[in-house]
């Protein structure tokens, strides 16, 4: 197990290294002159001003020097300085991270709380009216884009209640109830869509397991439905579900752009899009690396969970 984890961590480091090259190169390949873009609000940047700015930002140096410098900075915990804000990138990124992590975690929690039970019910009551209703419910979730649902929620709130969630981040230490309100609605909007996927995977996986011999044996032994379904069937059906949950969580870290934008939550995804538009290299590079780390770690966690859920899974040394 330890060897396996160590191997995975080494692979993760290599993946991150590869990611760093890709993101560094892609940013430089993007069309447009970085100084013109960064300072487009000034309307015009003269050639002499441009030269001075490039020197000031250190982007007049060869690409490989800039890359090595960035990696060196990351290894020493210094994420560089934001071009747009003229401040250490870490100071800007730090408050964004908990917002996105919390929203993604809460959304995933809602997705699991809605998706797994409805998937089980749908499988157990296969081809009944309840099954059809639940499948329709999940199909609707898959069909409705999160941004559309988010905007509809906002419009309904403002039309019916003349109220919308707070416009800036409310810390749980400041006001727990308002904090919960702020995250509940976007998490439900995002979680509903994810729950639809989880529900469908749970249903199909459970239906497959329910046809296995050992389930028939369990029924033959006279065990109750609860024991057969929840202890024997569901546990064995959960592997693909866990995989989907892991993928969804990882996706949400970078994929909450529209939800964060509509609900005006100052998270990683919304800020990343703005930073890409401004070509704020230090912010973009480090945020993408953060997302990559979360994706790798959540994949590792899912792999570890396989062993917990299914004792037959062995980790090669």
């Amino acid at each position, binding site marked *: 197990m330890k060897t396996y984890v160590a191997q995975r961590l080494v692979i993760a480091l290599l993946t991150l290294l590869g990611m760093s090259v890709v993101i560094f190169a892609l940013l430089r390949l993007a069309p447009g002159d970085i100084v013109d873009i960064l300072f487009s609000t000034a309307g015009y940047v003269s050639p002499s001003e441009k030269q001075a700015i490039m020197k000031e930002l250190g982007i007049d140096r060869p690409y490989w020097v800039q890359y090595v410098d960035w990696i060196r900075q990351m290894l020493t915990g210094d994420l560089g300085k934001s071009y747009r804000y003229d401040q250490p990138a870490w100071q*800007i990124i730090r408050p964004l991270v908990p917002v996105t992590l919390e929203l993604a975690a809460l959304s995933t929690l809602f997705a699991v709380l809605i998706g797994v039970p409805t998937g089980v019910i749908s499988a157990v009551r296969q081809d009944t009216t309840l099954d059809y209703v639940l499948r329709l419910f999940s199909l609707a979730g898959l069909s409705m884009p999160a941004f559309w649902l988010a905007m509809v929620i906002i*419009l309904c709130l403002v039309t019916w209640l003349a109220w919308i969630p707070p416009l800036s981040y409310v810390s749980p230490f400041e006001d727990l109830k308002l904090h919960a309100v702020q995250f509940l609605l976007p998490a439900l909007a995002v979680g509903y869509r994810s729950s639809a996927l989880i529900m469908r995977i749970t249903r199909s996986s459970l239906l497959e397991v329910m046809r296995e011999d050992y389930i028939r044996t369990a029924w033959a032994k006279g065990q109750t439905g609860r024991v057969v379904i929840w202890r024997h069937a569901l546990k064995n059906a959960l592997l693909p579900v866990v995989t989907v949950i892991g993928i969804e969580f990882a996706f949400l870290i970078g994929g909450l752009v529209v939800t964060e*934008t509509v609900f005006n939550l100052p998270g990683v995804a919304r800020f990343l899009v703005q930073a890409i538009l401004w070509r704020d290299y230090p912010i973009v590079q480090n945020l993408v690396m953060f997302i990559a780390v979360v994706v790798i770690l959540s994949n590792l966690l899912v792999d570890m969970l396989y062993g917990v859920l299914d004792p037959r899974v062995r980790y090669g040394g």
Partner: protein
Amino acid sequence: MSRVRVALLSITILALAAVLLAPATSQSQSPHASQTPKSGGVLNMMLREDLSQGFAVHETATISTVWPAMPCLNNLVLFDPLKKTESVDTIIGELAEKWSWQDNYRNLVFFLRKGVKWHDGQPFTAKDVKFTFDMLREAPDAPAKLRINPRKDWYANVEAIETPDTFTAVFRLKKPQPSLLLMLASGYTPVYAAHVPPADYRTNCVGTGPFKVKEWRKGEYVEYVRNPDYFVKGRPYLDGLKYFVIVERGTRQAAIQAGKLDVSFPGETSKTAAEQLKKAVPQLVITPASQNVADNIIMNMKKPPFDNLKVRLAVSHAIDRRALIQAVQQGGAVGGAGLAPKPWGFWGLAEKDLVGLPGYGAKPADDKALAKKLMAEAGVSREKPLKVEIVTRAIAVYVDMASFVINELKQIGIEATLKQIETAQWHAMATRGDYQIGANLTGIGPDDPDANYYENYACGSPRNYSQYCNEEVMKMIDAQSQELDAKKRLALNFAIQKKLEADAARPILDWKLDYFTVWPHVKNLIPHQSIYNFGRMQEVWSDK
């Protein structure tokens, strides 16, 4: 899980949501009339993007910086916040207590206020004035240099700035320029502190203004608190200001509708949006105001086919301005030429003067026929159409206008394809002249001819995107700039505007209107004829 349990789970989630939402929905607005200013309260406002370059107004050219930075800073002079019209008669002193033109408008002398303190406690003196304007005009001996200086041209006529004593500053001009005072009264012209490096304004604001920065949470909000040491006794009325960054337009509108925000963003509210808001919340106060922003067509005169005056004029004649105002702006704009017309502006050609200019014919069909004739003379016919690429910024208001223009051009044998350019690349592309024809918006700081002409029509100006250069017009521009008689200056300006349209230098399509929206408890926040000049918030109070 049984059906009953599923139902219970659903009810529990809904109940939880209802309990959490209940207290928050109890907010109510109950404005009551009162004309005596009250002190106290915090005003909540919106920003559509975070501050570009922080509070460094001198390094940007966007309302997204000027609007939220103005409360921190002061000018020498400012357009009276309580008067809608901006002219030389509505200028009031800020850091300058008095001012005087001397030597036939060659010297502008400012007598500065005493006892004014910067937010860090340092005293304000003439040294700060000299520091700021030497830096802006890039004097050889300037003690500091801006990273970017977008309005350097405004000060091209300033020869020297002298400070005979601690509280007097003299602007010595190369030639008379009465309009310099109007540019100094713009929100784009604050005084910086000489003891603070200009770069520091990108991250913080040391001003003398009515409000002090409390916190700038990047990408989220800027918060101000009242400056207790403000030099105007009893001002500001408000205890604080908070500007929320809300990128999504729908959320911004919902926030003002829900009463989370008290004020709309200048230039943000279209006529249609205003009508929707008014329908939803009848008590909202909506004031139509000029944006001092014009829809226009830029044509690259250095490249065929738009180096040909006949082709440019044909384009201008082809675009039916009145139809555009109705179809694209839903009536939320007015016709005009190079400067905004009355009552929205001061210098623009009136409706009656527009008749006869391209696109303003009594019958649109006559304009189209003339356009076709001009195209034929330029060698373009239905059999041999002219194919061009029309560029525009990838923003809805630009694309809508460009789409209308494409349809109009098609009717005179110009087949135009639309190319959308990312905002960040737009200005650089236009300055390089890397286009054939474009649908553009031009915003002007103060409603003054100098601010517009020297930037957008002068030979060699980087913002002169069409690369138009006419020596005769330049002489006229210089003449109006130096003209001391107001009536003569106005007449000269009418002539210049007609000449610019006749040359199709940058055909103006319309002047956009803003439907500035506030809740009724917001008092003394009066939109001006330019969106860039009324954000000081010194006189604003809340009747909540």
